[in-house]
């Protein structure tokens, strides 16, 4: 017996070691949640490796900072000029976007919609990775002592990166979105199709659960849908690269990530997401209905009525627009008209807004803003426009508005000013 053991000692040890590891593996696979015994090994390994990584990254960053901040300043003046120009462009864009946001808030309030927004983030440096093609994760230099917790979203300015998987004292492991065990609720920007975005073993991103009879154009933006309770809604994920037939009746939509997941350096951890309902006081019910009216497709009014109302001038109340347009719009959509009228009566619709708009910023509400957008469409936004950037709305808003026949416009401005070149004719 002893001779057998001695002769096959190596093999017996091999089988023993392998058996122990297989049992350990089976136990881990059977467990649904990570637990302490394996965590200890991970803590040791990460404790041994991450300090070196942190030191190297620090040395590299410091050297780079010294070089870029004190020596390599070539082209900075030209870059400064370009950035200033960009700031100007973005300021104008910001005004337009804030108007859209105001409008969206008003509509959300109408629908009792709860909005999510990122209220707090923490910058973190990527210090290491897993070093395996089958485990797409990275380590960051922030951990539990910095307030990080599992399942926090990790993003960059370009798009989402992943979520915090394990948190240690001074480091955390981030599971990238292209890992095969990752899943993100996603929505296509234009077509509004929803699906689940998964990683593949090859590190690609595939959006599934989209029916094969849907049409998805390549290049369309993919955003987070907020359905996974990790990523706030509306963050960019990437663009549609190609579409292939998937299993059953679904499409496989391959997505090119917006963030460069293979070269991550700095990331933002979303440490706080607030959810709040749009404030009703921000919303005049009448104003919201006015917005709805402008959004809904409308049917042209009869010319004689329009002419009559135009000739009557100030006798045409703004409420008439709100009453007329929603009704036709609602009817066009097949929604019962009572639903619209119950939200706000036409009479109470923006009694002061159009007039105030015309006085404070006459140029802000041309009745046919380039593409025939009704002034009523612009009226709800004129308040913020007048304060922020006069003269911007008409052209910028017009691109997003629904064209509507000209005869609807005159009643919007109850006090037409003869001197104003923008007075509707």
């Amino acid at each position, binding site marked *: 017996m002893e001779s057998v053991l001695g002769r096959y*000692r*190596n093999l017996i*040890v*091999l089988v023993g*070691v*392998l058996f122990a*590891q*297989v049992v*350990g*593996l*089976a136990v*881990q*696979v059977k467990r649904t949640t990570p637990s302490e015994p*394996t965590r200890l*090994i*991970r803590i*040791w*390994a*990460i404790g*041994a*490796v991450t300090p*070196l*990584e942190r030191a*190297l990254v620090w040395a590299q960053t410091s050297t780079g900072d010294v070089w870029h901040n004190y020596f390599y300043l070539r082209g900075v003046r030209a870059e400064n000029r370009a950035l200033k120009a960009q700031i100007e462009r973005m300021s104008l864009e910001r005004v337009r976007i804030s108007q859209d946001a105001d409008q969206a808030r008003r509509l959300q309030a109408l629908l009792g919609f709860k909005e999510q927004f990122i209220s707090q983030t923490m910058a973190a440096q*990527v210090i*290491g*990775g*897993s*070093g*395996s*093609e*089958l*485990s797409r*994760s*990275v*380590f960051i230099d922030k951990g539990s002592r910095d307030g990080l917790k599992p399942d926090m979203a990790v993003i960059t300015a370009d798009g989402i990166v992943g979520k915090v*998987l*394990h948190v240690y004292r001074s480091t955390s*492991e981030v*599971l990238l979105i292209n*890992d*095969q*065990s990752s899943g993100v609720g996603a929505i296509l920007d234009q077509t509004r199709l929803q699906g689940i975005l998964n990683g*593949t*073993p*090859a590190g690609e991103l595939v959006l599934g659960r989209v029916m094969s009879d849907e049409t998805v154009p390549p290049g369309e933006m993919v955003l987070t849908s907020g359905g996974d309770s990790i990523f706030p809604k509306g963050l960019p994920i990437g663009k549609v690269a190609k579409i292939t037939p998937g299993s059953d009746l679904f499409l496989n939509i391959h997505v090119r990530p917006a963030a460069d997941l*293979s*070269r*991550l350096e700095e990331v933002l951890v979303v440490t706080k997401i607030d959810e709040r309902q749009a404030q009703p006081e921000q919303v005049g019910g009448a104003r919201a209905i006015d917005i709805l009216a402008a959004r809904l497709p409308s049917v042209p009014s009869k010319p004689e009525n329009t002419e009559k109302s135009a000739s009557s001038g100030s006798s045409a109340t703004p409420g008439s627009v709100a009453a007329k347009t929603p009704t036709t719009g609602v009817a066009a959509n097949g929604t019962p008209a009572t639903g619209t009228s119950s939200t706000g009566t036409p009479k109470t619709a923006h009694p002061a807004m159009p007039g105030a708009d015309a006085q404070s910023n006459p140029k802000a509400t041309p009745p046919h803003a380039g593409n025939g957008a009704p002034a009523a469409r612009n009226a709800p936004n004129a308040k913020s426009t007048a304060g922020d950037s006069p003269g911007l709305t008409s052209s910028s808003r017009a691109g997003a508005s629904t064209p509507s026949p000209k005869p609807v416009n005159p009643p919007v401005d109850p006090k037409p000013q003869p001197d104003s070149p923008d007075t509707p004719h």
Partner: protein
Amino acid sequence: MAITYTSGEQVEVYRFSIPATVLIPLAAVFLQAFIPLRFPFFVIFDLPLLVTIGFATARRNPLAGLLTGGLIGIMQDALTHQPIGLYGISKTVVGFGASSLGIKLDVENAGARFLITIFFFAVHEVVYFLIARGLVGLRMAWSWPHELLSGIANAVLGVLVFMLLDRVKQRT
């Protein structure tokens, strides 16, 4: 090709100092985790595997080989989010096989090292694939061109790594 059958008495058996035994695998695991962040293509290499093969073929002791491979693999597993044991089992097998082969073959020249590295890289990938798919249930994609390219790349790097290990190994 210089793979020659050698009797047990003819082969040289080497050992490594304790600092080298501890620090070299640690450095390999560290570099494997760190370099791909700066150079993404580096992920096709498996430095811990090369160190496992290098240690095993130099020591020519199956017990030491399998234990070294197992420990390096477990450490590598600890840096991933996959269950611990996938790399551990694969490298245990490789460590045992490489040291057993080292007893019988002369693996002191570059050609032999190149071929041995390719062979054990393939063994490692197959064992990993089978365990990951069969036991853990991971979705795995097997690509022959990718594996072949990785095998050759690792073999080239392996020859260089073995040359570095030659500098720190000590004759018993």
